[in-house]
């Protein structure tokens, strides 16, 4: 076996790959199932951006917390939320992560430190400041990660939270997933700056931009930032340039994208392809090893879909539970 040129053990490398593959398959499958009309509501797919959630969250344990977005499936999977429960939730079933009450935009698992996907742009930023504050009070060295897109980066809540985190030296990492679009609107319409990373210094924190399609780039930059936050060094901003492979939500005709944009990105910027190639080229694993993972993941997703479909819907009586005021 050759020397490992990567900052992760082979085991962790394969774990990272499995996470990214699971996210990709989960999303590709939703794309198919949605088209069939089986899935209620809107779903926003994370396909293409897997390296961000995975590269960042490989550094986390259950003590660490994340606050996610409307495009949250990838963050959930990388935080260890049960894929069966997630799928069932998206199908609106009683066996879902939120017992069918939340749906795609509200998957949460606080026991795993996953504080929820969120239907409100930027809303996770204050929440994660609170999680980080709790960790600071407890002295448990927990770190909080909040994700937001290039569009949500301009929500007042996000901006206020950056200031708060810096003022209070909170262990928070602000991750911008800059995929160039907010729904159908180009990031050029969202702001007067070329990169959000310049905002960091204005709030008193370091910032760094990386290629979010490159797992290793994300992993290394996030590692340093997270370590620093964990050691009491305060917050930071991590901007990841990414591409989303699908539309804003399923059903989006993507007329606003350049012709061939998706194809180009899939061909040349696929985090899974480049990861696999680099690890194979380094002689650490073979295509067979990866194929094996792919196979296992495909089975997992198949199984998740099958059991989600077979699962019962919530009972009508569920409508009135889980709000304290009994009406």
């Amino acid at each position, binding site marked *: 076996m050759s020397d490992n040129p990567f900052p992760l053990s082979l085991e962790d490398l394969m774990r990272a790959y499995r996470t990214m593959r699971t996210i990709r398959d989960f999303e590709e499958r939703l794309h198919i199932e949605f088209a069939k009309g089986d899935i*209620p*509501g*809107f779903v926003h797919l994370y396909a293409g951006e897997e390296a961000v959630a995975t590269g960042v969250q490989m550094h986390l344990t259950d003590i660490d917390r994340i606050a996610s977005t409307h495009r949250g499936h990838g963050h959930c999977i990388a935080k260890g939320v049960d894929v069966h429960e997630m799928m069932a*939730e998206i199908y*609106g*079933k*009683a066996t879902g992560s*939120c017992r*069918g*009450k*939340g*749906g795609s*935009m*509200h998957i949460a698992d606080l026991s795993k430190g996953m504080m929820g996907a*969120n*239907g*409100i*742009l*930027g809303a996770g930023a204050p929440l994660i400041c609170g999680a980080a504050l709790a960790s600071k009070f407890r002295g448990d060295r927990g770190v909080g990660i909040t994700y937001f897109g290039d*569009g*949500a980066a*301009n*929500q*007042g*809540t996000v901006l206020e939270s950056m200031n708060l985190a810096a003022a209070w030296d909170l262990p928070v990492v602000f991750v911008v997933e800059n995929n160039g679009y*907010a*729904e*159908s*609107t*180009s990031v*050029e*319409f*969202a*702001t007067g700056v070329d990169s959000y990373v310049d905002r960091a210094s204005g709030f008193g924190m370091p910032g760094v931009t990386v290629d979010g399609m490159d797992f290793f780039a994300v992993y290394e930059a996030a590692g340093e930032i997270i370590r620093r936050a964990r050691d009491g060094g305060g917050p930071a901003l991590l901007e990841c340039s990414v591409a989303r492979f699908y539309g804003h939500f399923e059903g989006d*005709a*993507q*007329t*606003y*994208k*350049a*012709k061939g944009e998706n194809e180009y990105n899939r061909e040349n910027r696929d985090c899974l392809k480049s990861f696999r190639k680099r690890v194979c080229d380094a002689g650490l694993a073979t295509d067979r090893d990866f194929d094996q993972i792919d196979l296992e993941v495909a089975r997992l997703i198949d199984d998740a879909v099958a059991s989600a479909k077979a699962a019962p*819907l*919530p*009972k*009508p009586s*569920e*409508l*009135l539970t*889980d*709000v304290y*005021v009994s*009406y």
Partner: protein
Amino acid sequence: MTRKISYKTAINEALDQEMTRDPSVILLGEDIVGGAGAPGEADAWGGVLGVTKGLYAKHGDRLLDTPLSESAYVGAAIGAAACGMRPVAELMFIDFMGVCFDQIFNQAAKFRYMFGGKAKTPVVIRTMVGAGFRAAAQHSQMLTPIFTHIPGLKVICPSNAYDAKGLLIQSIRDDDPVIFCEHKNLYGSECAVPTESYTIPFGEANIVREGKDVTIVSYGLTVHRALDAAESLARKDRIEAEVIDLRTLSPIDWDTVMESVEKTGRLVVVDEAHPRCSLACDIAAYAAQHVFEALKAAPQMVTAPHTPTPFSPSLEDIYIPSADAIVAAVGKTIARVKAA
């Protein structure tokens, strides 16, 4: 001339006609162009559900795709209104009001009063309301009672394409801030709508079905549930319900509602909002205070439950007030007739 068009098209047409008529009308919102400057500009989204589609081609830079900063752009619309423009800002879902409410309720709503009558703020905030879209707790709320509670805001919620067009044109011409609530589950519903421009005055409820036995008051989507209930009551129980569509929640047409209650002696109010401090309460209480003598039975309120909107179809379907629930409520007003 009239022809059948959808609620969505009627709104689009109202915006188009007012933009054509008055250069001070501008539109601001997230993705209201939806791909300006992009290769597919000619086929731009025109809003997340296509309501403003085509307007960019006609009116160009008078439509502004905004950053995702509701406080800033809704506030900018309000500021521009105070400076003589007639902006129409789109708050994509009313559920997002929590990130920009201050500009609406402490600024726009209060200028006129706070400044001693020396300001006017002719801004319209168009926004989607209501459940039934499988969009869960943060994209399905009504929240109309919250806006109705605030003095200085006018609150409108049309139930059909004809009203949508006439009320939106009225809203744009009105000199006060207007919250224009579009029920997302009505966008596809069609009816006959004149091609010309016309207005519907605020504070005029619409008797959409006449009847002598009971008054059912509602607005928005549930007007149609009320009509279904009325049909069923007529068919099965020979009860003739009068159905009133409020159309405008603030100002509200108390006269029409109270006259009807005085005639029928029975009142059922249907509100897709949560029960506490709702429009259902508002109307039932007003009737109880003002036409108490006329009431032959306890007024009944039919609302969504006191819960966030659930995601699962099995729960959401029973969340929105149903025609059955309305029929049952009518039953209570008729079963329990006043001893008198």
